[in-house]
């Protein structure tokens, strides 16, 4: 089946006083109908930026400097603001990391839901209100019929986030871009939201880009996973392969940083050091200063995505022409 979303060689730049920063470079992926693509990676890796570029809400002076974005086969990366705004409500539903910027503090949550639905679907006031209450129930707001007339500030952080989710879903879009949708939620509500998102993907064929650093949520929800690092995709592949036997040394470090649930450890394993600043991305592989497997070629040439057998990884260890090959430890995760 044709992909709902195609991102080709996307490049996003930020002109600054100190020169132009490249926030995204050569990012490409597809999402098929009913498919959930999980996007993970260190904060600042460019996950939110990728989502913002797709929905046409890059914060100025950020701009798309190259590549293309197609929704159902049509370019959407060069559309005038008004046209993109209509697409955003109807065809793309967005769930942002920061719930307060999405909700209008001056309107009740019910009014915001009703207006969103009526903009995109032919509904009477009464039906729209009924549906608004229905969506609030679906995302687990207790006493929805009573709280539909509340203002956003009367809700807890997690409840506001659930209202944002209801807002993104209520116009039944073809693509959902969800940036950390369940981060503010506890596990039991999270389970409910994840089940809802999965059901929508399955039943309505909704495609979903799910940005989160919660690997448990990824494992349960995503079909494929993209790991981002310093504005590029470091590894992409089926969820089972990426989570259980990652191939890129950065993915390996990321997966081993997950705190264990079944015991307490003295020291959590992590990845030494920090991701480079955009203005100081090293030559060659951007991960090379932190990589335990670095070799000469890594400091010179930048690796593209290479087939590893189970995934595709931007790492020279998987290039047959390299002088060094992936050690057993990495090969088998």
């Amino acid at each position, binding site marked *: 089946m044709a992909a709902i979303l195609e991102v080709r060689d996307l490049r996003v730049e930020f002109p600054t006083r100190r020169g132009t920063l490249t926030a995204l470079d050569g990012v490409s992926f597809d999402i098929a109908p009913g498919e959930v693509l999980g996007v993970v990676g260190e904060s600042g890796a460019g996950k939110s930026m990728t989502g913002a570029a797709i929905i046409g809400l890059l914060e100025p002076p950020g701009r798309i400097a190259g590549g293309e974005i197609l929704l159902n086969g049509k370019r959407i990366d060069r559309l005038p603001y008004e046209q993109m705004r209509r697409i955003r409500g109807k065809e793309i539903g967005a769930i942002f990391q920061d719930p307060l910027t999405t909700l209008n503090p001056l309107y009740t949550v019910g009014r915001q839901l009703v207006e969103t639905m009526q903009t995109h679907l032919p509904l009477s006031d009464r039906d729209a209100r009924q549906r608004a209450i229905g969506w609030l129930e679906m995302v687990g707001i207790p006493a929805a019929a009573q709280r539909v007339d509340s203002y956003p500030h009367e809700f807890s952080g997690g409840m506001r986030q659930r209202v944002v989710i209801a807002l993104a879903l209520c116009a039944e879009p073809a693509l959902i871009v969800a940036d950390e949708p369940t981060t503010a939620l506890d596990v039991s509500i999270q389970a409910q939201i994840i089940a809802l998102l999965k059901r929508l993907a399955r039943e309505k064929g909704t495609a979903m880009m799910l940005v989160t650093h919660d690997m*448990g949520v990824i494992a*349960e929800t995503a079909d494929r996973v993209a790991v981002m690092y310093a504005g590029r995709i470091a590894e992409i592949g089926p969820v089972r392969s990426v989570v259980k036997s990652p191939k890129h040394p950065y993915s390996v470090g990321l997966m081993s940083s997950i705190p264990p649930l079944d015991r307490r450890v003295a020291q959590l394993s992590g990845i030494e050091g920090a991701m480079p600043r955009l203005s100081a991305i090293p030559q060659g592989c951007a991960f090379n200063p932190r990589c335990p497997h670095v070799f000469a070629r890594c400091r010179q040439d930048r690796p593209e995505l290479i087939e590893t057998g189970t995934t595709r990884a931007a790492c020279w260890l998987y290039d047959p022409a390299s002088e060094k090959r992936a050690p057993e430890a990495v090969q088998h995760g």
Partner: protein
Amino acid sequence: MAETPVLVAEDLAKSFDVSRPLLQRLLAGEGRRTLKAVDGVSFDIPKGTTLSLVGESGCGKSTVARLVVGLYRPTQGRVLFEGIELEKARANPETRRRMQMIFQDPYASLNPRWRVQEIVAEPIRAFGLAQGAAALRDRVGQLLTQVGLSPLDGEKFPHEFSGGQRQRISIARALSSNPDFLVCDEPTSALDVSVQAQILNLMKDLQARLGLTYLFISHNLAVVRQVSDRIGVMYLGRLVELAPAETLFTAPRHPYTRALMEAIPDLEMTGRQRIPVGGEVPSPINPPTGCPFHPRCPLADARCKAEMPKLLPPPGQPGTIAACHAVEEGRDPAPAPAGTDQRIGTTATAL
């Protein structure tokens, strides 16, 4: 006599007025509505230890945090800092320096018009903790490095950072006054796992070296297990179970605690259906009668609907207190023997 705990919460309650505007109230013929965000919460935190609070969104965790640092005045009960009533203790600038809070929302807590350098330096300057501009800059650089940012990031404004990076700035700011009691409301929820590991290691390291005391709030049970000495489970504004960290994981007693353990996402991808806690989350405006968990509890009976259970140690488990009639009556399923886990499968070893 035992050392005075750094923090004591005694029977804390906080209500909010959530009435609709007067005119609408008159039209609808309804009275004022209050929401009890927190009710009857007591705990203490001994020096150098970590107490964590977990529970569903909206259950009142952040409200407890705000009561503990004096951002809200309790409707009932009181908070003692080293044995002194909070308001009196906070009149002393030294106390204000010593207690700091890391907020859940990294967007709201940073002044957008200040550079990061100024944001982090402000408490250092306010409390006179560095002599001279060079020392101040060094200290800020050191703090930024500690949280995984670069000293050069001091030149930027908060909006130039991603969500997780902003949270690291607020952690650097909270640490800048050398506090010894930190209230951390979801400090790592906005962070990716690798930075989360660094921050949790930093927090543990500071505690080991400097004897810091933490009130830690999170909904991530794996994170909570890594940092806590004791864990309190909240439901609808109340503490329903309080236990040593290891005991809570190996022998959870309250039916809600058990349900939370069941709902944890599965990294093993065994295809296990997560069992969301059944039933509807009740409204804190009209809490259920009796035990607040009874509409969702598999063990609920007539007594549960009528009578609020008290926090009591379960028979034979003195370190724990749980507010549940079934536990008190001994009619709950036996806890798993110590040492075995409620959930099979680990995350790290699988990778």
